[in-house]
């Protein structure tokens, strides 16, 4: 395609092609600190940002997210949201095509060589919490997917750009001094206002360093502070729902997930502010983390 870029994020390599220059330029800037794949690197996945119809390259330019794996009913996006389209395209390839780890739709951070995994529905605050902890002494491993190793049971990082939505953008702008780490504010996307944040340098430098999971949290933002432990069976069912490739990976996925829920203590945590959550997590980490 006319404009293209190859990116390595965690264990995966993406080849992104675009009919327009702008999304590739935005990616190039935001992923500048990531190790660059060598010339002629073989990509795991191809992502295409292509005109959503005849003439849509120029007239009311509209992006269709395409590639190796596609959703037939995906709605086209405006070109000014092209960076988001590229990120969604990469996520889609992982969600539908990755087979080398069990993919859990969860954020993860690491401290003392052990991983804290945070799962939950979108809007639960798991992504913002990971971003916040990533600025406060934890290493961010990923805000979208935690990759569970089928053999060792460790969590592998997938530290793509952190996708901040709505109020989380302001929270993180106050937290991160360096404005250069932020992508453009994309207002009025199908997911609301979105801005991307480049993970801190240590998150990028250690993007191939896995860590054994020590605690699983189901955070819920917007409720009075409360914690309750969750049983293995319930956790197992939640995680099969939160995994995009559990069914496709078959028996080894069952065993990996079974090992995970029997080894890792799990807590549901309601919270109403970042400071509150940070303190609760510090307590939990001291008491519960195995």
């Amino acid at each position: 395609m006319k404009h293209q870029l190859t990116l390595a994020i965690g264990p995966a390599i993406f080849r992104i092609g675009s009919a327009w220059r702008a999304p590739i330029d935005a990616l190039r800037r935001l992923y500048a600190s990531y190790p660059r794949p060598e010339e002629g690197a073989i990509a795991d996945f191809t992502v295409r940002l292509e005109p959503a119809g005849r003439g849509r390259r120029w007239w009311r330019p509209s992006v269709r997210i395409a590639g190796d794996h596609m959703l037939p009913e995906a709605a086209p996006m405006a070109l000014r949201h092209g960076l988001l389209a590229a990120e969604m395209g990469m996520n889609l390839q992982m969600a539908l095509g990755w087979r080398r780890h069990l993919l859990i739709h969860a954020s993860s951070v690491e401290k003392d060589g052990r991983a804290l995994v945070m799962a939950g529905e979108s809007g639960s605050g798991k992504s913002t919490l990971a971003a916040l902890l990533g600025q406060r002494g934890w290493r961010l491993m990923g805000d979208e997917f935690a990759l569970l190793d089928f053999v060792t049971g460790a969590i592998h990082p997938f530290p793509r750009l952190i996708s901040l939505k709505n109020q989380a953008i302001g929270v993180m702008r106050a937290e991160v001094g360096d404005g250069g780490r932020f992508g453009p504010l994309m207002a009025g996307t199908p997911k609301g206002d979105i801005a991307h944040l480049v993970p801190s340098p240590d998150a990028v430098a250690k993007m191939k360093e896995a860590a054994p999971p020590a605690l699983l949290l189901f955070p819920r933002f917007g409720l009075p502070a409360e914690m309750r432990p969750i049983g293995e069976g319930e956790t197992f069912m939640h995680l099969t729902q939160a995994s995009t490739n559990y069914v496709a990976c078959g028996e080894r996925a069952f065993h990996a997930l079974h090992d995970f829920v029997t080894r890792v203590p799990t807590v549901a945590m309601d919270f109403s502010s970042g400071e509150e959550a940070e303190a609760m997590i510090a307590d939990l980490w001291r008491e519960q983390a195995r």
Partner: protein
Amino acid sequence: MSAAALAALLRTPEQAPHLPGEAWNGIVAAARAERLLATLASHLQGVALPEAVGAIFADARRDADRDRQLALWEADRAACALAPLGIPVLLLKGAAYVAAGLGAGAGRMIGDLDILVPRDRLEEAEQALLAAGWEWVKSDPYDDVYYRRWMHELPPLIHRERDRMIDVHHTILPLTARPRPDASALLAERIDLGGGLWVLSPEDRVCHAVAHVLADGDLAGGLRNLWDIKCLISDIEDMDKLYRRAALHGLTAELSRAQRLCDHLFGTGEGALRLADRFFLARLLSTDGWGRDSRPLLGLGFYIRSHLLRMPPLMLARHLWTKWRRGHRPS
């Protein structure tokens, strides 16, 4: 044109160790678009490959293994539903290839389950499948009537628990197509696999694959169908017998063309091509190194051809008018 590079690699796997990374990117994207990635992976087993390609191929082979397992299970479920009525479940296409352990099944991705049942048992089969948990997919009455009156299969059914489709055929081409394959001959020569499952004879397998790609449809994903045919023909012992069989089904011209195309794509490439063959080749190789159709106009041409093959002009006009009024537009 990376579909061309893909075909070339299937033809000469020994070139694999010398391919640069950029070529692999195009081949992998084209192979995914053509649903041939696991086929390529199986075909290149034992060849020295770059590590990244080896990992991609290992994933693809796992997916194909899983497709195989699911397809065999669906076949078993269908046999279980139909066996009490004494209706033989004759497997077609992908499920048949893996159930019979054919070369064409190696790495084959399999979607729906396709089976052939005798036309006079069709109604019973339909009732038995509905009772066993399959449900109608389409609710449009025009489509339903159209399928039952003119098609070679029932409207597709989907299993309510397993979410898998079954296509129940009573012959291998629409009743409106010009060639009229002999469905009772297909059934008479069937081969028993045990477990209530049957497959077509080797010759009829080729005839069906040829009819499917060259006498029906718009050749979307046709490269995989041609690969099927190439593998199925390599299982044939007596080519004269195959041609006699094709003549019986009215598919002689289609079989000759399939052989010329296979030879050009996957064989020696020494045989002469007809002028029209070049259009078929251009269509079959239209996927580019990003997995896109690089010749949409040619695709549209074949889409129109597929309708002309399927219906006489007056009937086609009526069909298109009905569909248009219902808001259907070609994609």
